[in-house]
């Protein structure tokens, strides 16, 4: 067994190496299911590629980790946009929903606006035509 990472590259000439890298690349991106001989270096590279993919796609976080990161992400986003607190369902149980707060605030502002408009009309608007004498 060779000792350095480059030993395989020394064993194979440059052309073979380039060809192997290109074939490996094509196989990784394709649905090809050709038969390969064990003697073909590509066979063992592909087997290794499959192993690496499976190993790297193995979950690395616990549910607690995911929940914690998720809460931090929502907090970070919420600092810039309050509406984003609604993004994930698990935040819905927090009690007062931002949409409710927003809706209530809008209603209060609307009432205040109407009251101000009525006051101004009281001072400057013409008397109603059908008003009570």
């Amino acid at each position, binding site marked *: *067994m*060779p000792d*350095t990472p*480059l*030993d*395989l*590259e020394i*064993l*194979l000439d440059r052309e073979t*190496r380039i060809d*192997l*890298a290109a074939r*490996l*690349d094509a*196989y*990784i*991106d*394709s*649905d*090809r*299911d050709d*038969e*390969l*001989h*064990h*003697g073909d*270096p590509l*066979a*063992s*590279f*592909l*087997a*290794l*590629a*499959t*192993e*690496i*993919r499976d*190993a*790297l796609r*193995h*979950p*690395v*976080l616990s549910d607690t*980790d*995911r929940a914690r*990161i*998720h809460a*931090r*992400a*929502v*907090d*970070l*986003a919420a600092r*810039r946009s309050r509406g*984003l607190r*609604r*993004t*994930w*369902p698990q935040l819905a149980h927090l009690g007062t929903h931002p949409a409710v707060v927003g809706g209530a605030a809008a209603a209060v502002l609307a009432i205040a606006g109407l009251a101000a408009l009525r006051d101004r009309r009281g001072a400057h608007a013409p008397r109603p035509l059908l008003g009570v004498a």
Partner: protein
Amino acid sequence: MPHRTPQSLAAERLLILAAQRDPQAFAPLYTKYVDQIYAYAYTLTRNKDQAEDVTAATFARALEELPRFEWRGVPYSAWLYRVASNLVARDKRRPGWIELSPHTSADADETPEHIATLHDRDAHIREAVDTLPHDQRQAILLRFGGELRNKEIAEIMGRSEGAIKLLTFRAMTTLRRRLGAPLPAERDDHSEPRRHHA
């Protein structure tokens, strides 16, 4: 070999469209990619806390940008990886950045279960990937963990497609040696043909 298929991409596009209509529908995308982004962030930072910071910031950005996100026919993860990469690059320019060696950062609070899994083949592979040079590690993680194409990886890493192909091949050569895979010259050329299934 590929898990990434036109069908899987189409399904992902639907997930994104659903999330754009209703942000609560972002949850499946988060669940699908959080582990990958964390693993990538850890590969870049070598620090669990920083990896978590980067992952949280990446998904925060994803939430903010979701209404403006435009589908380009590549996995959503390509966009997430790019954001994570940019965040790490930005943070590295700040004073106080601490990059720990691989075994001092991850092993500090290993659980018994985690220690047990170190004996698994998967754990050996992850360990071997962890010891690759930085660029090779990144390329392997994006190629196999993220199932991205060379062109997409090149964009994320700011390298040429050719450079990515070379990095990946060199990394796989190293991994073959470290993981004990027999070299082609030592194999039996008269053995039976076999099919490769992913």
